[in-house]
């Protein structure tokens, strides 16, 4: 059985090295204060950043809405398109069992199951996870019985 959680939003990835993200983030926060009601955790629901003509074209938005199931719980979030599945799990869902090692596909510390297949969450864009089932190390327990990996 999957539980439905209220929709939430995710701010852009925290990466200080990128020139373009600072103004973007500032704009996000400014906008989110104005629209208070739809804002969670400092982010905004997709679309509010855009001008009226762009707002119609979802393809042009820097953020997108995605619904996925994480360890049996259905979640709907709006993510900055740059957010990795790993950051979504760790920073916004608080599932810190998947680790960030290299952040480049080379160590496997971020391994999760997507629809039953193991993948690197660091190289997976969260925005691509529409409709999938994600299982993290936290989700491997069978009731109170811990999985050997745990």
């Amino acid at each position: 059985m999957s539980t439905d959680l209220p929709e939430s939003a995710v701010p852009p990835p925290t990466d200080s090295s990128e020139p373009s993200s600072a103004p973007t983030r500032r704009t996000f926060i400014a906008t989110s204060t104005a629209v208070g009601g739809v804002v969670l955790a400092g982010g905004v629901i997709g679309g509010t950043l855009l001008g009226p003509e762009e707002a119609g074209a979802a393809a042009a938005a820097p953020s997108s809405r995605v619904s996925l199931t994480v360890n049996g719980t259905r979640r709907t979030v709006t993510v900055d398109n740059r957010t990795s599945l790993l950051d979504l799990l760790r920073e916004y869902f608080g599932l810190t069992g998947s680790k960030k090692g290299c952040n480049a596909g080379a160590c496997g510390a971020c391994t999760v199951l997507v629809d039953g297949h193991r993948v690197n969450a660091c190289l997976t864009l969260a925005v691509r996870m529409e409709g999938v089932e994600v299982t993290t190390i936290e989700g491997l327990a069978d009731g109170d019985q811990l999985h050997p990996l745990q």
Partner: protein
Amino acid sequence: MYPFAYTRVSDTREALNAGRRGGRYIAGGTTLVDLMRETVERPETLVDISGLPLREVTATERGGLRIGALVTMSQAAADRKVRSLYPVISEALELSASAQLRNMATIGGNIMQRTRCTYFRDVTAACNKREPGSGCAAREGFNRMHAILGTSDDCVATHPSDVAVAFAALEASVHLLGPDGERTLPFADFLLRPGSTPNREQAVQRGELITAVEIPALPRPLRSGYLKVRDRQSYEFALTSAAVALHVSGGVIREAKVAAGGVGTVPWKLPAVEQHLVGERPSEALWAAAVARAAEGARPLRHNRFKPELLQRTVERQLRIVGGTK
């Protein structure tokens, strides 16, 4: 990572439309997301093609195989037709990357992957491939992993794919779909040597979509396999590698397909070795004689002077393994 728009397409026409407008296709994302994070790649729009119906391995009428561009590396490696007809392909795939990456990465993305030259990935270094005209930091830098064949003054980077070496050996072809319709390129024309334009790595036009890689039929029985030599046993790209396929009948080699990886700016087909083998009986002496000129024309760099000899030994060893003499 720079901001980008994201769009998902569900048929090839939609994909081509988005591609023509400058959208960048994303399949497994294992090359693209990595390079976007390093700001080496800066696409404005990502076009998610993972929903396209290019996920099948099918037998061709003439006895070959057609591998859809979106078949994952793990799916192709496990496919029963691939395993029984061309073990060299499944072996090359199983020696690539990691199980997690192979579950994500696709065949189309694999042959489109960019070099692993560390200077290419470092946006502060001079690199003609990333920024034409800026120079090549690898020439005077650390170049142990770099190419000795097919290099130019402008670039000495290797093509990193393993399965591309098998495709080159087997003389595969690449099926492409563009605004003007379909076309097919021999694998040898698909990947480009650097010359004076190292920034162009594949003969793909803007917006063109790879739909499949086709492996031609070869006479049976065919024995084939892939050998990869590397500094450590996993997660590592080839220092050298060899893809070999041999058709032996009546005790004589009738057909030989041989290519090497880790040494060329593209997978390096070895026609001189092939010609030496055809018409001969497998023997220890034959393998040794056949590879004598395998590294002809090599231009080693400061840190990879060992590569010509390692290349010969790698090919010789794989000929022995596939050809069946001890």
